[in-house]
């Protein structure tokens, strides 16, 4: 005889504001098989959990229904509580009357009735629950870090230093990411490359890190502890083992006018190239889209000049497969291009540039060797207007969020300009100055007070070109909306930080959720900031939302700590909610007819064939067999099984029918 305990949570007022919890408890107490039914303000609190534990012992409960929030939230909490009281944790179920009921309906009898119905279905289900034991699977202690910017570098080094293997995958020819493009960093004005490049070299040299550049994730399957990651190594048209990185090919390459990605289009590169002098690895790749040989079928100058004969024109993409226990996403961000701004000229004015382009102009390794010269004619600009919030905080541009980094880097840009061009005048149009990091506000004050950067609070309505000048028309809202017009030589837009190109596609490959701006979503905005909703996949840095360097590095170390924590166990405990093929005594053995439809539909390749033999070794029957280590409990095979021979533990046919019947036979 079932003895079920029902525990109705008020969740403060989250549930009780619209659902009459007392009534739910009272009605539920009369359901057949219910031994005890109580309501409580905070069931997840310590006294609330004790209520559950005491009831289990006192009423000798055979099952528990906690009717509260989503099982995603507190199922583990209450299952642990049940286990502590000696009840098998899989005999505890959550009835979600918060997300599925109280939050989405108005207060009223119908809402309470719905909560009662939800509780009834779970009571009927839990009566049919069986005690289950968790399964343990070994963990592959290798982490795949996707993205080789500062986030990926930090995370990879942390994990590798903890003694675990790391595979780093970077789609560009070199690691380094956006940080390697930056000139100097706020709030200390130390050189970005000086602090980053040693870390890049550390990655390349670390015995625990395998680095794949010019590589992309082809596919990922498996799950936490045992991901199978297939990596596409794009052809570099080069034998890296033979190449010494002497650079002769780059010097002689006849195609020299390709806008350099690293220089943000302000400088040129050749068709065979390394993105920048400090690149890691410092060996070139051939850009096949622009290489004369691949376009016209002849040239091969690089092959002729290569002293070690390292060029391989016929090299094809290759693949490596990695067994990984965890994945770490550190794919970074991009910035909105100036072409997205109709009011500032749709990108048609050469001297209207974005923040990353200004970084290159100010960088000692940049196209102007660190001199601030405008792109159109190479003149030193006498006046530069910086426009903050270009695209950010602007619903009209579809980006209502604050990009967070622009206030600081714009202050830095204006400061760097003033340091390099003493007679120059920097103006900054801004909405608010958000300088909330350590030493950040002081930095902005320094820009205003010492470097005399002219801050104008207001928006710019239009930028247009006239007689070689850029006319910037805006408004000064601190002067009661006075129109302002500035004849500038250059305009720098602090364009919004956006999700990196390809992030949506990658998220879909990895089954990681992402927001409407295509940034990857964390599992919980406060308490799980570096986890994703997919177990075993972690986030670091600006792929989640734009972040500055300190924040990115902190997030990367946080994510690395999570990976190292996971790898500190040899076996991974998993819920046994997996599919099984039902067996029966001889002479039937199993109702499975051996159609093997399930093998074809299983997305995880978890099903194979099992031969049932008699004691002489003769095959009696061949049936399906599900590998418990690979099965994810998705249930696809259950739906396809014609003979109803497959069940999901914890969600078997009886249980699901009981739930449905409970709704229908009210």
């Amino acid at each position, binding site marked *: 005889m079932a003895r079920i305990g029902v525990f109705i949570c008020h969740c403060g007022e989250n549930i009780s504001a619209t659902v009459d919890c007392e009534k739910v408890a009272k009605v539920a107490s009369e359901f057949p098989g219910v031994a005890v039914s109580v309501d409580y303000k905070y069931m997840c609190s310590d006294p609330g959990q004790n209520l559950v534990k005491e009831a289990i012992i006192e009423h000798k409960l055979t099952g528990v229904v906690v009717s509260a929030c989503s099982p995603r939230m507190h199922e583990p909490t209450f299952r642990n509580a049940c286990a502590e009281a000696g009840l098998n944790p899989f005999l505890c179920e959550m009835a979600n009357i918060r997300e599925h009921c109280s939050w989405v309906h108005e207060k009223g009898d119908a809402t309470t009735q719905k909560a009662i119905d939800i509780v009834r279905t779970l009571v009927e289900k839990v009566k049919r629950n069986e005690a289950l034991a968790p399964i343990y699977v070994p963990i592959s202690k290798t982490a795949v870090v996707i993205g080789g910017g500062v986030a990926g570098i930090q995370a990879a080094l942390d994990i590798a230093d903890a003694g675990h293997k790391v595979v780093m995958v970077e789609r560009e020819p070199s690691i380094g990411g956006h940080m390697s493009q930056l000139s100097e960093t706020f709030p200390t004005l130390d050189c970005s490359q000086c602090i980053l490049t040693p870390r890049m070299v550390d990655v390349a040299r670390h015995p625990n890190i395998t680095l794949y550049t010019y590589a992309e994730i082809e596919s990922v399957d498996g799950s936490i502890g045992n991901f199978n990651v297939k990596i596409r190594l794009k052809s570099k048209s080069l034998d890296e083992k033979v190449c010494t990185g002497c650079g002769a090919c780059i010097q002689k390459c006849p195609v020299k006018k390709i806008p350099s990605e690293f220089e943000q289009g302000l400088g040129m590169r050749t068709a065979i190239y390394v993105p920048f002098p400090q690149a890691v690895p410092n060996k070139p790749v051939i850009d096949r889209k622009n290489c004369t040989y691949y376009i016209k079928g002849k040239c091969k100058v690089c092959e002729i000049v290569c002293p070690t004969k390292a060029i391989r024109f016929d090299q094809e993409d290759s693949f490596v497969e990695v067994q990984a226990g965890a994945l770490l996403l550190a794919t970074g961000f991009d910035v909105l291009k100036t072409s997205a701004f*109709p*009011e500032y*000229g*749709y990108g048609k004015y050469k001297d209207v540039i974005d923040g990353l382009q200004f970084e290159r102009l100010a960088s000692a390794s940049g196209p102007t060797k660190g001199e601030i010269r405008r792109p159109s004619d190479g003149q030193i600009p006498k006046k530069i207007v910086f426009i903050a919030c270009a695209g950010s905080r602007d619903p009209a541009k579809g980006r209502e969020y604050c990009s967070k980094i622009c206030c600081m880097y714009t202050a830095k840009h204006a400061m760097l300009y003033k340091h390099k061009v003493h007679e120059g005048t920097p103006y900054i149009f801004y909405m608010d100055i958000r300088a909330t990091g350590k030493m950040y506000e002081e930095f902005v004050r320094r820009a205003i007070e010492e470097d005399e950067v002219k801050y104008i609070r207001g928006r710019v309505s*239009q930028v*247009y*070109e*006239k007689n070689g000048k850029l*006319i910037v028309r805006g408004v000064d809202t601190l002067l009661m909306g006075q129109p302002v017009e500035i004849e500038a030589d250059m305009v720098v837009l602090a364009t919004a930080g956006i999700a990196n190109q390809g992030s949506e596609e990658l998220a879909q490959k990895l089954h990681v959720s992402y927001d409407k701006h295509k940034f990857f979503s964390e599992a919980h905005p406060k308490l799980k900031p570096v986890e994703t909703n997919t177990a075993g996949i972690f986030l670091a840095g600006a792929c989640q939302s734009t972040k500055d360097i300190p924040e990115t590095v902190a997030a990367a170390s946080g994510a690395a700590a999570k990976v190292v924590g996971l790898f500190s166990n040899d076996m991974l405990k998993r819920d046994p909610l997996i599919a099984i093929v039902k067996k029966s005594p001889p002479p039937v053995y199993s109702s499975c007819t051996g159609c093997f439809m399930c093998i074809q539909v299983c997305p995880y390749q978890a099903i194979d064939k099992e031969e049932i033999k008699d004691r002489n070794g003769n095959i009696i029957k061949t049936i399906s067999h599900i590998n418990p280590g690979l099965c994810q409990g998705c249930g696809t095979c259950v739906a396809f099984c014609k003979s109803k021979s497959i069940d999901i533990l914890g969600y078997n046919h009886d249980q699901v029918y009981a739930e449905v019947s409970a709704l229908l036979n009210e």
Partner: protein
Amino acid sequence: MQKKIGYYPGCSLEGSAREYNESVQTLAKAFDVTLEQVPDWNCCGATAAHNLNKVLSFALPARILANAEKAGMENILVPCAACYNRLSMVQHELGKNESLRNEVNAIIEADLKCNLKILNIIQFIQMFISDFVGDKQQLLFNKKVACYYGCLLVRPNDVLGFDRAEDPQMMDEVMKSLGADTIDWPFKTECCGAGLSVSRTDIVGNLSGRIVKEAADRGAEAIIVACPMCHSNLDMRRPAIEKAIGEKIDIPVIYISQAIDMALGKTQKETGINRHFVPVNIELKKKEAEPQVVIEKTEEK
């Protein structure tokens, strides 16, 4: 083939912008398009109504739309940019807001479907004229022109869905097809001063002055417009403009429909350019026969 379209001229086209009406009529006639006036039409409310009373500002255009719907019209041409904007905005709002639609329906005693296709002059030209100009064009519009769209034709972009809100291009395309050289300039949608024309001509002089001067500085020989308000500010208020900028500028302001009429070789009376305050002293070049025609003739021989 006889083509038919509903026509809402609005008050301007019967008064200060009657030459706009004349040129549209001439244009329609030249391409066999019948302009069927919306029966018993009224004022669109202009800027005045929505400053006074929200419901009134919906009811006035709604009545026009209802009359057009009742007359079985599917699309209507609204040459005045302000009327076009009001009618489009109201149809959009009433289309998605059922309670407001019911309220307005009750006032105007109608049952609005809100499914009219409302065309501005440029859309009309694209639909009924551009593809058929061909041989009808007699004169080449061989001038450097500044296309000036004003604020009402392209905004708000998510409602009107016409051209791009900054730096629009459609009028430029029409003018280029007539042989004109259109200048790339930043003031295509700049404010002309609009209704301040009456109360504060000095402000209009300043605002419109910027526009006219910019066009002149960039070498335009004519400004092409599609809005009676813009036209009157740039043309009729030229003395105020000249006072504001301290400079005499004599570039004429021509409606897009007039420009096409001129290229078709229509008379001053037919195009209505004789009614302008700034004289339209533009000599267009005779269009040379197209080379293909010559080739065909030689083949015949």
